[in-house]
């Protein structure tokens, strides 16, 4: 997918092209500013005092940069406990997603069996199934199993495949040459060894994408923890934030500081691994 580069030397600097360019940059810059504004507001707001936040007319910059609000986060909630809970869920989501979906995707792409592609359509169909339809029975089922108020509904379930990730990995694996496994089979290698030693190392880019998606999904998740974690000791950062918000007197400057702390790791990860983020999203748009 090369970016097309066509040079129109004569047209490039004509007044109409320059005018069009100016308009284009102006529009994009304007929209960009609007897109960044909420995030800038959050980072700047996390240094403000309450009265600065509510001041009319609104002022972007805080009077001074001090970390009072960040310190207050640690005083108001057991931050590290909630961070640990979040990370436990994130960890199992990443491991579970990688292990189960690479196995399943391998079975749907590198081995020939009757009806394979028909069954795969079923996988795709379950992708558009709204969570709302399984939400209530799942809750009742986990309740019966005594899993409500444990991490299990959010962690254990990740080890059983997630259609979207199966789809992503399968798309990648199906593009690998067939000779890859054929020659190894002649040498007497078993299917699992071919999967583990030959295929997975080649699939690193797509596995990285899945790992990132799984991280983002579980780090940002609000609905899952809200429904399945009833015990305050198991709360994630998202739930803690929502709990702080529903206080009678929510201290918004502290909430913005907590928000900044939750966004920061994701932003850093994004800037380091940008390629995989964009790649993954692009792949999701390719029809199966």
């Amino acid at each position, binding site marked *: *997918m090369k*970016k*097309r580069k066509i040079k129109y030397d004569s047209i490039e600097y004509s007044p109409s092209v320059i005018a*069009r*360019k100016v308009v*284009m940059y102006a529009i*994009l810059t304007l929209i*960009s500013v609007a*897109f*960044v504004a*909420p*995030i800038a*507001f959050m980072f700047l707001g996390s240094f403000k005092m309450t009265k600065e936040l*509510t001041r009319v007319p*609104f002022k972007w910059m805080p009077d001074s940069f001090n970390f009072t609000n960040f310190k207050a986060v640690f005083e108001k909630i057991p931050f590290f406990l909630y961070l640990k809970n979040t990370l436990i869920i994130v960890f199992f989501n990443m491991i579970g997603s990688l292990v*189960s979906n690479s*196995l*399943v995707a*391998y*079975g749907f792409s590198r*081995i*020939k*069996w009757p009806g394979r592609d028909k069954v795969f359509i*079923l996988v795709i169909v379950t992708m*558009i*199934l*709204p*969570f*709302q*339809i*399984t*939400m*209530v*029975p*799942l809750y*009742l089922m986990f309740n019966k199993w005594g899993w409500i108020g444990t991490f299990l509904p959010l962690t254990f379930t990740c080890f*059983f*495949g997630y259609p979207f990730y199966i789809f992503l990995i399968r798309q990648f694996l199906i593009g690998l040459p067939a000779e890859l496994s054929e020659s190894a089979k002649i040498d007497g290698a078993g*299917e699992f060894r071919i999967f583990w030693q030959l295929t997975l190392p080649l699939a690193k880019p797509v596995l990285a994408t899945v790992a990132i998606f799984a991280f*983002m999904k579980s*780090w*940002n*998740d*609000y*609905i899952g923890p*809200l*429904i399945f974690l009833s015990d305050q000791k198991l709360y994630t950062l*998202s739930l803690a934030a929502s709990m702080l*918000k529903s206080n009678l007197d929510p201290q*918004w400057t502290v909430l913005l500081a907590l*928000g900044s702390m*939750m*966004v920061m790791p994701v*932003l850093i990860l*994004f800037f380091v691994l940008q390629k995989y983020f*964009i790649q993954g*999203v*692009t792949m999701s*748009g390719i*029809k199966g």
Partner: protein
Amino acid sequence: MDYRKKDIRNALLFISPWIIGFLVFTLYPILSSLYYSFCEYKVIKAPVFIGLRNYINLFGDKSYLAALGNTVYMLIFGVPVTTVTAVAVSILLNNKHLHHAGIFKVVFFIPTLVPTIVACFLWIWMFQSGGIVNTVLGYFGISGPAWLSSITYAKPAFIFYMIWTIGNAVIIYLAGLQDIDPNLYEAAEIDGAGFIRQTMSITIPLLRSTILYNMVTLIIGVFQWFAEPLIITEGGPGNATLFYSLYLYQNAFRFFKMGYACAMGWVLLVISLAIILVLFKVFKFGEAEN
């Protein structure tokens, strides 16, 4: 074609996690959801079969109809506005004269990285009567409404939320735009077709399947939307932002009417499938025309 027995066994082993997951965490819940939708089920007591009562009650439930109406509002206004914005932004980003597409791309993608709860905090603040949105409107001499506590303006504030999170769609549109043969534009340019003409006659028609994909994603999203209205407005003011899934959630986990919630879930599934099918038909119809 011959299949080796060993291959079939291996394949089953490899996909067994999915088989178990599908049976336990998808198929069984779906079937029980269908059954519960015909029951009165209040968690503490065993489900009692009541036939179609839940479905019939939906039509007399004012809150349900409000939720349905609000969701339709988002489908009619939110989805097209968001789609047009995303396509327009992508076309601008794909322009050959733009030299900093990478930076802009990042800017549009960043909002999708923000955790739901944090994004909701930001919306509460941006759209307060003395918030940033109204401050900016004030620069132009417009005195903005108290968005989130206004029956008229609460939903538009949520449309802005949809627009703010177009990052994923933009990336997908950009991939679609890159696939369009540049020779087509060259030929059009030689024929004297301007930018608008090129966009309408080349870009949009060839981007059709990508638009369809993104719209379907968006529509599913609108039907499943509930964390955001739950945190930002709790469905208020009045029932102005009570969206479909939010009301479903409330029925299940606030009023503990599990059977009723399941019935809502099934209506949701049927409606969204119907809309998706119609969209497919519409887009395919256009395809045959060309």
